[in-house]
């Protein structure tokens, strides 16, 4: 018999275990809107604590391939749905256990516990059947199926199941009657007394007509009994002593019924299910996802028909369409310099580049038809921050400190995303400083996206590639949100935007009526 062990769906080697998973998102999450993406993916799945999985990039290409294989298996719809329903059943089991722990009266606790174990049995049996019917190719799921089959056939599991079924049958055979008079309640066994409510309803049913006001009161649905109900239950237990003493024993004996590996599988599979569910939203809208080729020894990265996953989610929510963009680098290119009209999708392009690389590094499929991406050691971002009174150092000084900090930590294998930095100084200063910084980034050889209004950077050297946000040919106020590879043209269309908001001199004179 093969060994009854299985490690993890998320990492191939036990040594790579996600033991030191961070609870906080990396610093660049907010800038890249990855926080929004991960929030959307994990929404409604808080109980699994999935976020740390998304905060931990993988260290090597094989780790990424391990996850790609599992994703591929799960792209098969039947298996995907079956695993989802496994998750639902396990969730129901946890709810039942929570009741057990919340409740006060012993027989109530024990009954909820029995329900939980029964649900667990159902979950395991369905999973065994579903996985045996599935065509699996991933190392992760194949190993887990082997483990699960052994577990389900074990003596321990089958005796747990038969004991559970027997108790259920016994409890459902219990029937009793109450007699409440003055301040006393009498409890006895059920003796086939007739249903009086039914006979009352039957007697008066001939008068029924039309809708009437509802005089029924709402009873508390709180699962917690009051002390009177509990007192009654204690008396019922006296009437059926054998059944209740075996329930007592069952509760004490089976406290650790839940298999640890299955519990971990239940959590880890959610990483994949959650991501694929999110992907499905975009695929329904005709957008593409692909499994990127990962490179480590060169930087010829590309992605075709990529998009900003956070923005796209928002746009689809508002029934707007999503614009896709391409990028590609050939040796010795390293740096995208993005210029052009504001509001034209420059920041979105920068975010997309960062998002794609990050999502690829945690082994997920990424937006795009086809992609080759670089497995970076670190991602750094620098987006403009709001000025506040706590920072008396001044904005420009702060900007420079942050950039210095970033450049001293970055290596040639890092990715840098700079968005409209150095805006709080003169054009002259910005130009001087930008060139100095660009020098350093070129020297580093790191991949970089730099959104700027300084056209001069776009033609800085052989490492820089000029990308430009574009407008509609027939109307300069209409943005296409296409970012094209072409020389910077120095037009920013500011006046067109001022016209749009009616804040040019002429419009203002009209509006203020003077």
């Amino acid at each position: 018999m093969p060994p009854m062990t299985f490690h993890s769906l998320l990492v191939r080697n036990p040594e790579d275990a996600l033991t030191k998973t961070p609870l906080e998102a990396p610093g660049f999450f907010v800038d890249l809107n990855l926080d929004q993406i991960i929030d959307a993916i994990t929404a409604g799945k808080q109980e699994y604590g999935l976020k740390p999985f998304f905060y931990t990039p993988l260290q090597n290409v094989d780790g990424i391939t391990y996850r790609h294989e599992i994703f591929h298996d799960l792209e098969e719809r039947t298996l995907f749905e079956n695993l989802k329903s496994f998750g639902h059943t396990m969730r129901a089991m946890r709810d039942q256990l929570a009741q057990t722990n919340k409740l006060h009266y012993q027989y109530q606790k024990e009954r909820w516990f029995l329900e939980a174990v029964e649900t667990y049995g159902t979950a395991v049996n369905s999973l065994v059947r579903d996985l045996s019917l599935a065509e699996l190719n991933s190392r992760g799921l194949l190993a887990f199926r082997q483990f699960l089959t052994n577990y389900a056939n074990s003596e321990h599991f089958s005796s747990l199941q038969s004991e559970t079924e027997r108790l259920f049958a016994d409890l459902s055979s219990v029937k009793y009657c109450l007699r409440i008079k003055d301040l006393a309640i009498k409890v006895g066994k059920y003796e086939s007394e007739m249903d009086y409510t039914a006979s009352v309803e039957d007697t008066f049913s001939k008068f029924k007509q039309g809708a009437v006001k509802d005089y029924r009161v709402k009873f508390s649905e709180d699962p917690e009994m009051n002390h009177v109900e509990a007192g009654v239950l204690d008396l019922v237990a006296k009437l059926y002593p054998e059944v209740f003493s075996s329930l007592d024993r069952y509760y004490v004996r089976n406290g650790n019924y839940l298999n640890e590996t299955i519990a971990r599988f239940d959590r880890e599979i959610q990483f994949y299910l959650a991501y694929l569910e999110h992907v499905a939203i975009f695929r329904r809208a005709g957008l593409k996802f692909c499994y990127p080729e990962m490179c480590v020894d060169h930087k010829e990265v590309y992605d075709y028909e990529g998009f900003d996953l956070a923005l796209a989610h928002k746009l689809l929510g508002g029934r707007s369409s999503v614009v896709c963009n391409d990028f590609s680098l050939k040796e010795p290119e390293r740096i995208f310099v993005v210029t052009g009209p504001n509001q034209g999708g420059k920041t979105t392009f920068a975010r997309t580049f960062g998002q794609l690389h990050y999502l690829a590094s945690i082994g997920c499929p990424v937006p795009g038809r086809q992609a080759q991406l670089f497995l970076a050691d670190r991602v750094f971002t620098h987006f403009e921050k709001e000025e506040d009174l706590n920072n008396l150092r001044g904005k420009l000084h702060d900007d420079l400190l942050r950039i210095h900090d970033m450049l001293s930590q970055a290596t040639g294998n890092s990715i840098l995303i700079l968005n409209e930095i150095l805006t709080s100084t003169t054009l002259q200063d910005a130009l001087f400083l930008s060139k100095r910084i660009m020098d350093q980034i070129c020297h580093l050889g790191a991949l970089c996206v730099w959104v700027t209004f300084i056209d001069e950077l776009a033609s800085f050297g052989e490492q820089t590639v000029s990308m430009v946000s574009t407008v509609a040919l027939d109307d300069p106020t209409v943005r296409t949100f296409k970012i094209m590879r072409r020389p910077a043209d120095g037009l920013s269309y500011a006046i067109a935007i001022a016209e749009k908001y009616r804040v040019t001199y002429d419009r203002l004179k009209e509006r203020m009526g003077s």
Partner: protein
Amino acid sequence: MKAFLMFRDRDFDLQGKLPWNEAALTQDLELTILFNAMALGDKFLFEGAKRAVLSGVKNDLDTILYRQRILQDCLKNPSVVRELYTIAVEAIESERKNHWGFFSRYPSSILSGAIDVLQMFVGVLKRLKKIADEQSGNFDSEGFSTFFTMLKRELGDAYFASVEDHLRELKFREGVLVSAELGKGNRGIKYVLRKAHERRESWIARIFAKSLPAYTFAIGERDESGARALSELRDRGIHLAANALAQSADHILSFFHMLRAELGFYVGCLNLHGQLTQQGELTTFPVPAAPGERRHAFRGLYDVCLALKLGRRVVGNDGDAGRKELVIITGANQGGKSTFLRSIGLSQLMMQCGMFASAEEFSANVCDGLFTHYKREEDTAMKSGKFDEELSRMSGIVDNITSNPLLLLNESFAATNEREGSEIAKQIICALLESRAKVFFVTHMYECAHGFAESRRENALFLRAERQSDGGRTFKLSEGKPLKTSYGEDLYGTVFGANR
């Protein structure tokens, strides 16, 4: 009975609308720091301070002077003012402890709650009257004179005596005399309908009459139905009286609420004044000019929020814009430009709500709208780019523009390149000035500042953040035309080391 300590002829509206740009003003001028200093941790004082300060832009000259004189009285008699405030707070707090009676479904509870509250109120009103009798001679302002005179007039001894008579009477020590008629909607119908319940009981009783194995337990003694029926009749009798009495209690309560709200503003001013004095900062009662005039002159004007934040004296600025309507502030980064701009906005708001200003001397015309336009962080909703967002906000300001507005622009229009930003700034500022706006503009856009220096020499004041010869900043502004460079190069040297 009205307090009339905020307006000569009307109540201070705690519910009224705040300026549409309340959030922007609060954020840009760091107003929360000011409110906290006034409130000293008291939630109610915070709300009142916020409301008084932010709604100040709608005050006329007369109201400002009316409050200034009241505040001068307060500074002269701080302990009396704080005592008046405490009395109002105590009245409200004691009432709240009694309040459960008013939510009762039973008139008897409502009535006895109202009696308790009114007895307590009578005690409080007597204390107010006593202060009016003893202290009114120490107050000079019109506002306090009117207030004390009103208390003396309304709260005579004979009045208190008649109130106490009623309260004693309503306790019904000799029982309630009730007359009643039978109405249509009687509850007996339901009992009739519950005949079925009685039938079921007898049926169950029949079942259990057989001797079967069974267990019994009993619960504690409890029969309330008889007592309830009796007190219901009593409640019908006292219903209207209870209503009238509870309403009276509410009227008096609302007087205390108003008194607390209006005094609360002055207590907030006292709190703020105390902290600033302790830090060695000076304050002055500003000299407001009519909205149609143009004046902005100050000496030792400092950013009150920065001073509060640092807990020590901060650098003040001097300036006199005379009748000029445009002030352009340029110069070194971290040289005190933003701080100065904030001090302009804060002093205007302080003046307009009737407070002292954070300066040695301050005089300015009253404005009827204060607008801030500060550079903001990239919109995380991703709907618009930065420049777009800036112009959209500017458009929002124009939608709400008033006839004598004051605008504070901090690095506005810098989200595009300098050449275009300058052009847009020129167009907007020119149009604003031509419709009588006063504009303070902090900018590092040389093109723009220089352009105004050339074209509007006569109607603009230029201030510059200074830099000392050793490269250090003084944080003090002085009059001066824009210079053609900022100081990025030496910052680069500091941060990256001179050789890189």
